[in-house]
């Protein structure tokens, strides 16, 4: 159960987004509070990734407002949003293929929040982050040589290196087996433990139910449920949307 303080860390109000004629998000509202793990679920095409992209500045919403730590960040470019303290990983991982893992993570460290000016001095911290995600033994490996699971960790490390207050995880667990999912869940908990608020999109129910403080369910661009995991998962609308009738 997350600590519910009065001022939300992230506040999203009446977000609307359409592509051509297709409505991707239709007036979505929600809040995330400091220190919680907030999950968004919903079938493919329900607008989860679009939501992520709007929060992180990769897409411009047609209307609506995003407030982070009391500051309006709607429409800011992605790099500024990152520097405000929101980092993300992509569903389809985007490592810098020709760079080593160390360099990959260094990008986050050098350009994220409280950016490093001296690369050599921050090497220690970057290595620490790589150790934290379990890539400590692959520091000099080029990203294109990593396995898919390792690339996910790399992506996570790069996001963490940006010193976020809010971390957006787009399908972190996808493609992992049960054992790896367990590890990833522990990792997410540890991240939260270090004081970082987590918002995630996740398909793997075990993970969602296991670590989320609150869940929001989307279907075709609309919020159909929000609340504690055990409540949301019993919601008839959610079951129909997610699993079919």
């Amino acid at each position, binding site marked *: 159960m997350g600590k519910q303080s009065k001022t939300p860390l992230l506040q999203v109000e009446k977000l609307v987004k359409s592509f051509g004629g*297709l409505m991707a998000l239709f007036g979505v509202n929600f809040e995330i509070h400091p220190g919680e793990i907030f999950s968004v679920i919903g*079938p*493919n*095409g329900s607008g989860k990734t679009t939501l992520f992209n709007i929060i992180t500045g990769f897409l411009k919403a047609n209307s609506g407002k995003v407030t982070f730590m009391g500051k309006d960040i709607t429409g800011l470019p992605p790099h500024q949003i990152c520097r405000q303290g929101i980092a993300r990983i992509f569903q389809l991982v985007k490592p810098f293929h020709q760079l080593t893992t160390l360099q990959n993570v260094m990008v986050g460290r050098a350009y994220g929040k409280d950016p490093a000016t001296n690369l050599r001095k921050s090497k220690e911290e970057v290595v620490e982050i790589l150790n934290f995600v379990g890539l400590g033994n692959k520091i000099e490996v080029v990203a*294109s*040589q*990593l*396995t*898919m*699971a390792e690339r996910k960790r790399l992506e996570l490390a790069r996001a963490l290196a940006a010193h976020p207050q809010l971390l957006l995880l787009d*399908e972190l*667990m*996808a*493609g*992992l*087996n*049960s054992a*790896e999912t367990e590890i990833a869940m522990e990792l997410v908990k540890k991240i939260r433990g270090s004081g970082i608020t987590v918002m995630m999109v996740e*398909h*793997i*129910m*075990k993970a*969602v*139910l296991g670590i989320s403080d609150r869940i929001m369910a989307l279907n*075709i661009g609309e919020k159909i449920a929000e609340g504690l995991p*055990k409540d949301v*998962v*019993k919601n008839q609308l959610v*079951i*129909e*949307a997610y*699993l*079919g*009738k």
Partner: protein
Amino acid sequence: MLEIERINVSYGDLQVLWDVFFEVKKEEIVALIGPNSAGKTTTLKTVSGLLRPFAGEIRFEGLAMGNMPIHKRVEMGISLVPEGRGLFPGMSTLENLELGAFTAKGRNCKEETLEQVYQLFPILKKRKKQAAGTLSGGEQQMLAIGRGLMSKPKLLLFDEPSWGLSPLLSKVIYEVIGEINHSGVTILLIEQNVRMALQLAKRAYVIENGRIVKHGDGRNMLNDQHIREVYLGTESV
């Protein structure tokens, strides 16, 4: 009909499939399920020839496919309805369908198959002059399936037919897949919407991290503890 024997596939230096095996018998519906990036799409791409295994063998109707190019496989009767539909967005609905019938076999009975497709999806007939890129998501999926049928395939591969569709539309598509199967086409599909897939499929294989971890009867799988845990959530239902 289709036998996959311990294939190993990699993208450059990155191996994604390890000793994947399964078979599809004539006129069956077989589902391949698994989490995202477990290797489902890679498997289908390998069957259709877009990727080549560096070890293992694929046999279709007893014939080893080895290095057979993609278009030859289509001529033999394997057709893939790709992930994200893979339409030709600048070309009209009709042109997309015609291209589906590119093979000699498909061309011979083009008009006939076209009628069948229109019967399955009447909306496509209305949209036949419209550019495929301007169709709605559901219509695009219908077009992709219709196009897959145009080559008169013996084996139709579906990569997430319900992708991006509302549950209702998914249901429609699934009914059509059932119909197609009844008309004698063998089907191999991969799907996120596990429940739907398992209800339809005769048999199913579970793939995780590039390896087949389980296989069995479709409906039985719905009750499998592991499947429930991983895909449906322990507490749900």
